[in-house]
Structure formats: structure tokens, C-alpha cells
């Protein structure tokens, strides 16, 4: 058995452990809910947890693996959510299988968000660091402002679309009218699809794809670009190509998560603002930049805490802010690093002596 475990590549082992952890966590949670040990409110958290983990992991791909800060992740989620919702509402009578329609909505939402990600990535290839971060922020803000202006109504004559002004009521056949998008108002017409098993499977697929991407040739190129882009370029790595791959993949999964969101609760464009992007960033930073498993655990903890502890919810944002500051100082300051190093070496020493004593 031990031989068998040792034969597996270390990277594959990490992937398997993470996947087993996710399965174990959601299995245990479902068990607790079924036996009545965890309340109804906890059950409602599980599916959102799945798509927030997808968001955190996909953001970690940009921030941790490529080393560029994206502050517009909520924008990609918003696009995915809108596209997924519109698709689901338009094909409600065409595609009869709920699961198939749900999966198609996810894929289409993801692809459209991914294309926007690639577009943004393409237009800012020359930028990096602070500039890139601020452009992604601008993109996120523009996205939700523009989506707030869209009106779309379906009737027996076809589709009516209008930007910024409401659609003229006289042109619409009121008997067969279905309002799909109505400006800044909430989208409520999507038929909900809440299946924990399907959500967890989508999460697992996401994790497998992202882990494999990171461990592939492309993934090593991402890390080389992160550590020193000039050196990476000099050994023949095509920086533009790999940056585009990351932006597309990251936005794709954000879009998928957005479409999942649209099928869980009602969709409101104004929720996808800068604050939401920051929340994802907090998940990534607390879990450890570049650490996929860390993002998963941090998301579970930070998402569940404010919902389960009402007192915590009031101070949630303050705690998030302090997490950002403290984590950055602890992981980057030379003094703090030295203190942590000395503590960990001492711990290792104790472990070693304890083993030898036995």
C-alpha cells in the first residue's frame, strides 16, 4: 500500500488529497444536515460554498500562479450569471431536461465570461502590477453598470432589446410577454436548480482542471512569468500567450460560478461590485496566495462564519480588512518571517526529539 502511494507523483497526490477533502467535507455536511445535527440555515450554505470555492480558486490562478492582481473578478461572475440566466430563461421550453439546461447555461456563461477575460487580458498585455489591477477594477465597475442598463423582453413576436431606456410597451404583445432583463431590477425568472451533488461534481471537475493546468508545462510557464517575467521571456516563454490562457481560464470559471449563482438565488447586478471582488481576494489571501487547498479551506470558514454567527456578521468587514493587512505583513516582512522560521524549526526539533525518545 505504501509502495503504491509512493509511486504516485507528488503533484497527483496533492490533487487526490484535495479532492478527497472536498468530498469528505460536503459528505459530512450533508450527513449532519440529514441527521438533524446541523440546522436548515447550514444546508442553504452548501451550494453557495461550492461556487464561492470555484471563484476563490479561479482568482488564485490569476493572483497566486500568474502573480497579477485582479480586482474585477465579480465582473466576470456577473457576466456569467447574466448570460446563464438569459440562456436558461430563453430555452426553458426548448430544452426539457433541467440538468442539461443547467449544464449548458453554465458552459455558455463560462465561455462568454472567459472571452471577456481574454479580451481584457489582450488589451492590457502591456501593463502589469498596479496598473493592471486598476484596469480590472475599472472593468468590474463598467460591467455591472452596463448590465444594469439592459432591458430584454420575450413575446410571441420574438425578442425586444433596449439599452438604457425601458422598452416601449405598445410594441410588446402583453399576453405572451416574459420579462427577462429589466434594467437595474432583480432577475427572478430563472427556474432554480439546487442539487448539491451536481454542484460538488462541478467543483471537483474545476479543481481537477485547475490542478492539472498548474502542474502542466503551461503552469510552469505561469510561475516562471510570476517569478521573473524578463527571465521567462529570455528562455523563450511566450508571455502574452500564457497570460491570455490564465485570464481566459480564470474568467471562465468565474462565469461558471456566476451561472450557478443565477440558478440558486435571484440575480441583481449591483451586488457584483468592487466589494465582492475584494471578498474573493480575502479568501485567496487568507488561504495563502498560490495555495489552492488553502483557498478552499479559507472560503469554507469565511463563508460559513458570518452566516452562522450573527454577531460576527456586523464586524465581518473589519475582520476581513485586518486579515488582509496582517497576512501581508506577516508573510512579507523580514522580521516576521524570521520569527516564524525560528518557531517552525523549534517545532520540528521537538518533533524529532520526541520521535527519538520513543
Amino acid at each position, binding site marked *: 500500500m505504501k509502495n503504491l502511494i509512493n509511486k504516485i507523483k507528488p503533484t497527483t497526490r496533492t490533487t487526490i488529497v484535495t479532492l478527497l477533502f472536498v468530498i469528505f467535507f460536503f459528505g459530512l455536511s450533508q450527513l449532519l444536515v440529514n441527521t438533524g445535527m446541523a440546522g436548515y440555515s447550514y444546508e442553504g450554505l452548501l451550494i453557495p460554498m461550492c461556487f464561492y470555492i470555484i471563484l476563490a480558486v479561479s482568482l488564485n490562478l490569476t493572483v497566486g500562479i500568474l502573480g497579477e492582481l485582479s480586482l474585477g473578478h465579480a465582473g466576470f461572475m456577473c457576466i456569467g450569471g447574466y448570460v446563464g440566466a438569459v440562456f436558461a430563461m430563453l430555452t426553458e421550453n426548448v430544452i426539457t431536461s433541467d440538468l442539461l439546461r443547467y449544464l449548458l447555461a453554465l458552459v455558455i456563461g463560462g465561455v462568454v465570461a472567459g472571452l471577456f477575460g481574454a479580451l481584457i487580458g489582450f488589451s492590457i498585455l*502591456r501593463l502589469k502590477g498596479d496598473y493592471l489591477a486598476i484596469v480590472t477594477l475599472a472593468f468590474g465597475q463598467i460591467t455591472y453598470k452596463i448590465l444594469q442598463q439592459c432591458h430584454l423582453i420575450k413575446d410571441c413576436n420574438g425578442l425586444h432589446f433596449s439599452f438604457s431606456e425601458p422598452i416601449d410597451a405598445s410594441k410588446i404583445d402583453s399576453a405572451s410577454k416574459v420579462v427577462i432583463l429589466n434594467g437595474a431590477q432583480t432577475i427572478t425568472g430563472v427556474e432554480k436548480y439546487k442539487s448539491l451533488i451536481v454542484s460538488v461534481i462541478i467543483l471537483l471537475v474545476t479543481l481537477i482542471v485547475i490542478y492539472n493546468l498548474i502542474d502542466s508545462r503551461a503552469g510552469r510557464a505561469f510561475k516562471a512569468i510570476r517569478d521573473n517575467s524578463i527571465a521567462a521571456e529570455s528562455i523563450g516563454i511566450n508571455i502574452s500567450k500564457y497570460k491570455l490562457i490564465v485570464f481566459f481560464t480564470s474568467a471562465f470559471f468565474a462565469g461558471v460560478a456566476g451561472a450557478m449563482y443565477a440558478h440558486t438565488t435571484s440575480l441583481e447586478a449591483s451586488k457584483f461590485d468592487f466589494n465582492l471582488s475584494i471578498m474573493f481576494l480575502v479568501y485567496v489571501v487568507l488561504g495563502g496566495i498560490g495555495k489552492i487547498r488553502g483557498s478552499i479551506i479559507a472560503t469554507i470558514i469565511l463563508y460559513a462564519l458570518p452566516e452562522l454567527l450573527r454577531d460576527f456578521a456586523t464586524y465581518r468587514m473589519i475582520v476581513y480588512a485586518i486579515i488582509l493587512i496582517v497576512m501581508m505583513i506577516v508573510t512579507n516582512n523580514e522580521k516576521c518571517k524570521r520569527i516564524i522560521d525560528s518557531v517552525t524549526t523549534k517545532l520540528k526539533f521537538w518533533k524529532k526529539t520526541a520521535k527519538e525518545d520513543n
Partner: protein
Amino acid sequence: MNSFISYLASGISLGGIYALIALGYTMVYGIAKMLNFAHGDVIMVGGYTIFLAITSLSCPIWLSLLIGVLVCTALGVTIERIAYKPLRGASSISVLITAIGVSYLLQNLALNILGSDAKTFKSVVTLKPIVINEGLKISGETVVTIIVTVVIMIALTLFINKTKMGRAMQAVSEDKGAAQLMGINVNFTISMVFAIGSALAAVAGALLCSTYPQISPYTGSMPGIKAFIAAVFGGIGSIPGAMLGGLLLGVIENLSKAYISSQLSDAIVFAVLIVVLIVKPTGLLGKKINEKV
């Protein structure tokens, strides 16, 4: 025509406020090579301090302004000492995340202490509107903002170029190590930059809250981001660039609000940033710096 001139005037006034905030960004970026995301929230703190000094302590306006400037200066220096100084030499992404954290902390502390509702801010400007002709009035706030901005710009340019401290700032922003060898106290110089930037933020806060007479914990965040866009537009690190960028951005925002769509004016301002960065990433007056290995 009258309405166009009045939109233009209020655009210039808004642009002046952006320019004052953008100066703080551009000076800090020039010297510390970091985007001080919390700068916008220093404006909010300044606004609240002046508001509380006038309403709760019933101070006269000049004293309230002075208190606001002092509180912001102290706040700016403290933020630099506690949050940014330990990160000197860290990657820009870590510093940016810290700055976002500080911004969030200030915003949410204000939210928890003072409540989320917007309060009416009594204008600190007592000048009467200037009537040019029938239907064309320029408010006192606009006039004062424009005058204050111009005066501060001239004073700051003189300070940077003529005084010892100002030249020390230029030296540190050029090359920290070499400046230290010349006997410049780098840490003190950086603190000074934060102090000046934050004091300007307090002035900008007073003017902003007087022009749009209300204040809430979110007052600073949007103007802060837009002022950063103005700084990038004009060329980050350049003081005349911040002035030019701020004024242009204010005019663009106000005219698009008036003639295109009031809901989309923010989106248009952000689109300006994206276009500037794609076409000329160094901004209008910025210098191109080649990265060395």
C-alpha cells in the same frame, strides 16, 4: 450655451477636487512606488472630522478645517508607519493588497462607529453665487474650489522645486539608495510625502462635501478611485500631470453626465482609463521608464 458653461464650470470645480486628491496619489506613487488605495478613505475621515467639529464641538469653520487637516496628516503618517513601512521592498501586489485592507478598515470603522446613513454636510464655503447673466450662475463652492486648487498647485510646485525637503523628495523618488548616501533621511522623507498628501486629502474632503452637501462612509471611495484614474491619465509621478488629468477627468465626467447619460458617467470615466492605458500607458505628461534586469 449658458447651460454648457455652467456644466463646464462645475466640471472644472470637480476636476479641481480630483486634482487635489490625485496629487496625493501621484506623490506617494512617485516616492514609494505604491498605489495608496486608502487615500480615498482619508478624504472621508477628513470630511467626517470637519463635520463633527462643526456640529458637535461647534467650532468656527477655520478651526474645523485646521483640525481636519491635522487629523488627516496624523492618520496618513500613522498608516504609512504601521501598514506600509514593514512592506518596503515587498512585491507590489502585496503592498496593494495591504493598501486595500487599510482602505476597507477605515471605511468599515466609519460604518460601525458613525452609521451608514448619509448626513447633510453644511458647506464650509460662505461665498455667495456669482451671477454672470440671466440663467447663468456659478456657485461659491465652484469659485472657491478653483481658487484653492490653483493656489495649492503653485505652492506645491514651489515647495518641490525650491526647498531642501522638496528636493530630498525628488532625490528619494529617483533613487532611494543614492539619496540615503547623500545624507537624506529616507524614512522621514517618505513620511513627509504621506503627510502632505493626506493634508491635501483633508482639503479635498472639505471641498467635496461642500459641493455635494452630504457625507457617508462611502464618500471617499469613488472619488478616490477616480482621482487615481486622473493621476494615471496625467502621468503618474508627475505633479502638473495630476492637475491636468484631474481637470480633464472632471470635465469629461460632468459633460457626459449632462449630455450622454447620468447612470453611465462612471462607466465612461473608467473607459477613459482603459483607453489611456492602452494607447499611452505613461499618461499625458508621464515619463517612460525602462525596466532593467
